[in-house]
């Protein structure tokens, strides 16, 4: 598509000015549902949420309710939760196990492979004229990466592997470390009074941490022995900020391979248990990821375009001014119980709706969201100028790398990626960065 036809120019990459209307405009939001959530690969679940044949897990793609099923052969499907007769939902529960789904309006009944199997009065009322085969549930493409289930409505979209691209190089560090794979626990679900993009944008915002989360940092220091980040550590950190194919990630350097990862739940009492775990699993991780990714780097804050937030956590859009947040915790299946408990409690109590850290985010994001509601306020753009011109390539990493750990480079790029989708007629107009990085080790998309 020619640049001159470009419709949205929300982010000015020269100045970092962002048009705040994208957070609250109803028309823009409707277009997002179609052009972003209708086209991208969306995280919808995790294989561990449907472990048995005929299990289902109810989820969302944008605002569309979706049933993730594992059929009687073990194959995963994602169906729009919509009866093909009158559009009613055919599943009302969050989870369950069933071979069939019956619409409670008129009794149309579908298999968990999506076939319309039974229609009451098919011969009499419909005179045998209903072509049942043409009423298959609306089905999305499904693919998985390291146990995470993604789905996509658009037949023109590239494969999930291409969509993630070199971002997988970084994501593997957390999600694909061991043969045992991961499990997801949760989700805790709640409604935030925010635009969905503010939560994603914030994944790249290392700048807010010492201010927004100061109270949690202080008590974490007092009770867990986690030292408060100094000004120098915050602003001169050697850690890196990468932007790859729409996906953002922070990579932190480890001092040594068995260093306890900087994550919620590690404290002075259990640090040795974590280090023992990383020591024990290091050879396996090195085989799978190579020595750099297994022993020198940690995956920090990250987001997967469009709405994956800090790992496998989801910001489901609910209108421009609301977001249904789903908080999961991902654990390596083989972790000792003590580590699972520490991570579960740490991630549960520091993040999530009651999280000591996260509960301080929502009012700020709401402020960002609502800042464009009046004609006067929307005259003033948001400023994302931090680190302008201070990003480029780094031979050690794929993607665009910001010079500093604290930079708005990823946010600028996130909104640029948003424009890629909003201004494209179809996937032919949406750029995908070709994979360039060599994946050291044996780990693949699945295995």
């Amino acid at each position, binding site marked *: 598509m020619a640049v001159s036809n470009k419709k949205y120019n929300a982010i000015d990459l020269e100045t970092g000015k962002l048009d705040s209307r994208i957070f609250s405009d109803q028309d823009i939001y409707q277009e997002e549902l179609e052009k972003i959530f209708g086209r991208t690969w969306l995280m919808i679940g995790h294989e561990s949420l449907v472990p048995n044949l005929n299990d289902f897990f109810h989820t969302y793609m944008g605002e569309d309710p979706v049933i993730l099923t594992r059929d009687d052969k073990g194959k995963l499907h994602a169906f729009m939760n919509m009866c093909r007769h009158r559009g009613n939902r055919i599943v*009302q*529960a*969050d*989870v*369950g196990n069933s071979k069939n789904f019956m619409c409670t309006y008129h009794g149309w009944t579908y298999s968990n492979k999506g076939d319309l199997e039974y229609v009451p009065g098919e011969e009499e009322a419909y005179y045998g004229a209903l072509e049942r085969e043409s009423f298959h549930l609306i089905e999305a493409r499904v693919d998985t990466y390291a146990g995470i289930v993604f789905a996509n409505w658009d037949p023109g979209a590239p494969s999930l592997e291409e969509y993630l691209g070199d971002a997988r190089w970084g994501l593997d560090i957390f999600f694909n470390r061991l043969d045992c794979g991961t499990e997801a*626990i*949760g*989700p*805790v*679900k*709640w*409604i*935030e*009074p925010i635009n969905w993009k503010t939560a994603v944008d914030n994944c790249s915002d290392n700048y807010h941490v010492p201010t*927004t989360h*100061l*109270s*949690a940092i*202080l*008590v*974490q220091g*007092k*009770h867990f022995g986690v030292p408060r980040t100094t000004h120098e550590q915050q602003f001169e950190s050697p850690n890196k900020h990468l932007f790859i194919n729409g996906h953002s990630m922070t990579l932190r350097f480890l001092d040594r391979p068995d260093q306890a990862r900087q994550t919620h739940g590690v404290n002075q009492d259990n640090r040795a248990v974590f280090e023992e775990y990383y020591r024990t699993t290091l050879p396996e991780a090195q085989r799978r990821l190579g020595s750099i990714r297994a022993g020198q780097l940690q995956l920090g804050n990250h987001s997967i375009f469009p709405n994956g937030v800090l790992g496998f956590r989801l910001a489901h859009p609910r209108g421009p001014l609301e977001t*249904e947040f789903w*908080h*999961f*915790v991902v654990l390596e299946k083989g972790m000792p119980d003590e580590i*699972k408990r520490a991570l*579960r*409690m740490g*991630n*549960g*109590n520091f993040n*999530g*709706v*009651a*999280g*000591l850290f*996260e*509960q*301080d985010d*929502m*009012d*700020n994001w*709401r402020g960002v969201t609502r800042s464009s509601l009046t004609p006067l306020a929307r005259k003033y753009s948001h400023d994302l100028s931090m680190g302008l011109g201070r990003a480029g390539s780094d031979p050690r990493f794929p993607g665009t790398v910001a010079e500093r750990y604290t930079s708005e480079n990823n946010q600028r790029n996130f909104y640029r990626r948003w424009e890629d989708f909003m201004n494209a007629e179809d996937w032919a107009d949406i750029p995908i960065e070709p994979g360039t990085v060599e994946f050291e080790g044996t780990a693949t998309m699945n295995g």
Partner: protein
Amino acid sequence: MTAQTFGDGVSQIELWHELMQFYINEAWLLDDRKFREWLDLFTDDIFYFMPRRMNVGRHDLSRELSEVGDLAIFEDDKTYMTMRVDRLDTGMAWSEDPPSRTRHIVGNLVIEPLPDGDLKARTAFILYRSHHETDENIFAGSREDHLRKEDGRWRIYKRVIVLDSNVILAKNLSVFF
């Protein structure tokens, strides 16, 4: 009322009255923002737990509440609870600064004796919260406490809070249950 008694000879009605006073006091401590005193109602080995409440079919009600080991809304020990209270005193706990205005209404007390003189107490609650200018939440649910006497007074060593919500209709849970 017949003098049905527990082990130590205290009548059920006296005990019920004592516990009800305990819960009324707790509600006032919370609504008066005396969180240090509230924290002192819990033993050092407290397990403070709010499971997720799933929306499941009647045949699946055994799955309605998430179990320990799954992700919960709260899974606190005394350290985490103390961190929550300490946080408020830093002056920089933005979700509670300005603070929520709350009203805890507690009732429907049912008590059941446990071995060693401990008690199990179930209560129902409505927690109203008003925040900033117009934010309002109403949380309804039940609590099942295990209590034991320490230094002559009741303290809670296990609290399981069950919210009557699936998707929580609140920006955050920065208040106590």
